[in-house]
């Protein structure tokens, strides 16, 4: 949204298309404040882009990296698509739930971490894979998982 030509030079429908296209950036920007979008943020994103709140919600609830509920300071996205599922992602998710003491999507009591399943992360070569605040992890065998849990514990 930074550099914009004079709004009057653009045909109204073109301008609307431009604003609409900025929706993902707008959502990321709003999310940066508190880590998730509340209903007011959705309405604000709609106002800024000319989309309707429903249209914003369609995107916000679709994209794995946009959160509509509070999340921990770190979000661990565990891939559960084909390759990772074949390599034990379900067991991985169960273990994480058990050892962190939170269900998927919940925030740990100290606010440090949230674990979420994710559609394919594009890390099939490292299955079962995960993404910790943007950092690729995998294959998460038992040893690496222990190390990960230790790190999560330390960072609390």
């Amino acid at each position: 949204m930074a550099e914009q030509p004079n709004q009057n030079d653009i045909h109204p429908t073109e301008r609307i298309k431009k604003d609409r296209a900025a929706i993902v950036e707008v959502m990321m920007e709003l999310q940066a404040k508190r880590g998730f979008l509340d209903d007011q943020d959705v309405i604000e994103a709609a106002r800024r882009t000319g989309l309707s709140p429903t249209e914003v919600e369609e995107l916000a609830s679709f994209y794995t990296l946009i959160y509509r509920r509070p999340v921990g300071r770190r979000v661990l996205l565990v891939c559960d698509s084909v390759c990772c599922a074949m390599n034990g992602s379900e067991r991985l998710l169960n273990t994480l739930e058990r050892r962190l003491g939170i269900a998927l999507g919940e925030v740990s009591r100290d606010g440090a971490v949230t674990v979420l399943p994710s559609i394919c992360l594009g890390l099939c070569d490292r299955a079962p894979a995960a993404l910790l605040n943007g950092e690729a992890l995998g294959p998460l065998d038992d040893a690496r998982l222990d190390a990960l849990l230790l790190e999560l514990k330390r960072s609390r």
Partner: protein
Amino acid sequence: MTAFEIDARQVPFNNGDNILKAALNAGVEIPHFCYHHALGSLGACRLCAVEVKPEQPEQRPRVVMACMEPARAGLKVSVAAPAALRARQGVIEFLMTNHPHDCPVCDEGGECHLQDMTVACGPPYRRYRGRKRTFINQDLGPLVHHEMNRCITCYRCTRYYQQYALGTDLGAMRLRNEVYFGRFQDGPLESPFAGNLVEVCPTGVFTDKVFRSRFARVWDLDTAPSICPHCSVGCNTLPGARLGTLRRVRNRDHAELNRWFLCDRGRFGHQYTEHPERPWQARVRGQTVNYSDALGAALDQLQRAGAAVAGVGSPREDLESNALLQRLIIRHGGFFAAFTDPGIEAATAHAVRYINRMGTPTLAAMEHADAILVAGELTAVAPMMDLGVRQASRNKAKVGVIHHVADPLATLADYDIRLAPRQTSVALKRLQGMIATTAEQSSGDEHGLAQLAATLMHAQHPLLIGVVETLGAYGVAALAKLAQSLGGQAALAYALPGPNAYGAAIVNEDGATQKVLEAVETGKVRCLVVTAADPLGDTRTGWRWREAVGRLDSLIVMDCVDSATVRAADILIPTAAWAERSGYFINYEGRVQCFDRVFERDKPLPASVAVIADLANALDLGAGEPRVAIADLLPGIALPLAGEPGIRLTPRVRLDVPPPIESVAGATGHWQVGLASWYGDDPLADHAAALSSLAPASTATIAPDTARIAELATDARVMLRGPAGSLPLPLCIDANVAEDTVALPRSAMCQIGVGHGGYVELEAMP
């Protein structure tokens, strides 16, 4: 025409057709879900799996999706092939894993596409024993009920709602096995076409909430082909009744008009027939009487009045009632008018003459325009025309809208031109001037008019649509002249004020309304017969009627809804609503269509034409045969039957169009009144409980700039003064209202006695 083969049957197709479309057009059934004629192919549900036989010996047969595979000559397709059958069974079994087994209590049962398809192709037993995915439903308002657990994710709802109807408040949320179709938050669906979700959804996620409140199984419903009585488009409908009450209205396909869809006024407006205040009992001077006593009293009054009688028909009354009442009154030596407001009469008469001379497009043809000018708030008057404009807009047509209040179509328009009511015809003349010279030369861009003029000029198929009620005769003529200046390829259409406004216009003599009104005002009329009209509730002329009827000996009223006129009647004869009788309407195209009687009540009310015939026969005027009255009006026309597509009248009324003279306002005040209407606003649908609960609040709405100049604050209350009196209203400030305009609902205009484009005084209240 080329053809291909489905299970040894030759199926013709058009270029660009896919297998499924060609098959369905030819009446060959292939199971499908997500495909819809209006929405096209998506390939999402995988149910229309068919086998294509190999064309080369080394190839093997393959299973393809019929909706995605182009039809081509020589193709051999099998619906019955075991591989295709297995594929479809698998799809159904998967769809049914989460679908509840609630058919016995589901409103969709009996007309459910999923039910049909499961019975037709699915496995008879469920193997899945796991937990079902469940959702929380939303409150989508009073018209559409939401039951998300039944969803099979075909995306028909959002494809219809967002892509076809251009609504933005229903969407597909989330992902995976949890895809949810709903709104951001609970609340009434905003689209005027939301009710179509009920029919678009192939299962019971979206069902008719009004029907649900008084439900009947579909196989128990009495139905008959009908015509919508709520506007001049004349959409074809299929009302359903049970045990003597009307329960619902569904769409009935008409290839040139509504095809698959209805607006919410057409779908939910029918509730007026069940309104508790509906007049059921005949009344003579406040006393409840039976029909024959009321008829006797009416006869007595007509005989006593002699030639001092007048009759008022209506654009919402069928053709035969208007024609027969006109015959009765004229033969009795009195005055007849089919309208109650001389301004509306003149505007409608002109519109009808222009479309007679210049022709008018069908609703289906409107979608092929490449530039459209809409003069007036079309969504509020003829919603289905608005839906046609939306399709043209989707097909890349440039759309310009001239409007005076917030208008759903204007928000989608390329040229959003906001003008005070009286400036509309000025703008139309200005556009004509720009086209007559050349748009490029005109100096400056007045409200985007120059751009719009250039767009219209360069279009191959420009279309002009005018709202007759707000344009007035002068605006109607200005729009027609603009169409003429664009040359032969320009199409012209008018949204007329009522389902049979065209019919009323051809029954009516020019200037008759003024004559009747003046005759009543000057005491020349002793007895006035009104059928299905509410002269006393008119915006512009209601106050004059209210004073004038005091001079009558008797006011005889026939109607099926409550109104100011019904309440003032000396003799009231309640009549059958449209679904309780048959009749003819002539729509905006001059298409005569017949609606059939759908059901009979336990205590049936007479059709107004039957009451008029009884009066005519008793008076021995030889005017009693409705068919003869219509035949005289439409000589040489073989009237269509109900269920037929109707007959379009060829030009037969006088073609010379006298130029209308713009009326100059005599009233004081510098605020122009603009009609603030909405898609549920209609004399009948106003009495439909669920629909009318969505009506916007009654306010006086003005533009922010105007408010600033007039020093009016947002939360102010204002006093409006017109010829009929004054009225306090809360003020609303809205940037979508034109300057110098105060937008008022119909009821407020009626109370102060000012019509659209009239002037009113407005001041802040302390």
